[in-house]
């Protein structure tokens, strides 16, 4: 991957970061559009793998972005995507805490929270739509997705246990 491609990747994740109000996973469908559909840097399966591995391992949610970057261009790729997505979070908090908390600021904060919340929910739904539509193994993936949703709703089994169990099951069945 050329330096300019790497820089473009960094810039794309940087531009997404500004809209990361609903958590990084809400941006997955846009990331997919860029790294899978438009540029073909990785396959859809690799894209989903990055989410699966990050969910099964400890660490903040954005780790799937680190894996994605690593799959695209090794350590440099991981730095490009992770730093791109994190950079605004490294700068804005300093600015905000030095502004002081004025009444007007509180009001803007509330409006941003209330206004961007529904947009984030729509983005989250888009991510779900993409991932469910392209679930692996025609019906097997769909059954496992449905079973996970049911178990999360009906039991108190920790999510990471469900993911690891699904990994063992996945290794045993023929896809």
């Amino acid at each position: 991957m050329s330096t300019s491609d790497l820089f473009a990747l960094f810039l794309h994740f940087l531009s997404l970061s500004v809209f990361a109000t609903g958590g990084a996973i809400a941006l997955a469908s846009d990331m997919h559009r860029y790294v899978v559909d438009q540029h073909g840097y990785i396959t859809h399966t690799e894209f989903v793998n990055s989410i699966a591995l990050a969910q099964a391992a400890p660490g903040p949610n954005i780790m799937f972005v680190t894996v994605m970057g690593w799959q695209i261009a090794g350590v440099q790729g991981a730095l490009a995507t992770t730093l791109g997505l994190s950079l605004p979070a490294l700068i804005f908090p300093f600015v905000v805490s030095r502004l002081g908390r004025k009444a007007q600021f509180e009001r803007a904060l509330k409006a941003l929270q209330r206004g961007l919340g529904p947009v984030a929910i729509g983005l989250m739904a888009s991510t779900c739509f993409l991932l469910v539509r392209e679930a692996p193994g025609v019906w097997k993936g769909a059954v496992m997705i449905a079973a996970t949703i049911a178990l999360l709703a009906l039991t108190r089994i920790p999510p990471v246990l469900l993911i690891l169990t699904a990994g063992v099951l996945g290794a045993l069945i023929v896809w």
Partner: protein
Amino acid sequence: MADTSLTETGPPPRSAGELFLVFAWISMQSFGGALTFIEKTVVRDKRWLSPKEFLGLYAISQVLPGPTGISFCVLLGDRFLGIRGAVATVSGFLLLPSGLIIGIAALFQQFQHVPQVQGALHGMGAASVGLIVTTAARMSRTLRGQRTGIAVALLSFAAVGLGRLPVSTVVLTLGVLSVWLAWRAHHQ
């Protein structure tokens, strides 16, 4: 567990080294979202922030551009030890898990031709999707009774999920409109 009132706190963190270690420990415990673990450590165990202060910082981190967890780390580190503190919290929060996850990804890539390994990834992927759908459903519940919010969420889904428009386009149009509506509703 100590019974903390809404505003009471204990002694602040002593050094950047302590912040680094505490946030490294938080990140290594975090599965499916770090904020629960940040709250547990920072408010209940270490008592660096009162529950009220925590919610205040959390609200700001959520709105600021960039991942919420990282914004929170920067706000907290900066609050106690300035830039040095922020560097300590963020590096503690990110270094260990990113090294670990790249190690795991490299290991899986080594064996990706083995059908069982690919199968395990398919299974883990499916369960992760189930988890994400559940999170989305929980988020959607906050929209109950809010007509404007529901309309905005549906439009946002139609544009990005169905129309495959870039997120930036949607946030700059629909997002700006939605924030403006929220601002106006609050004003009246």
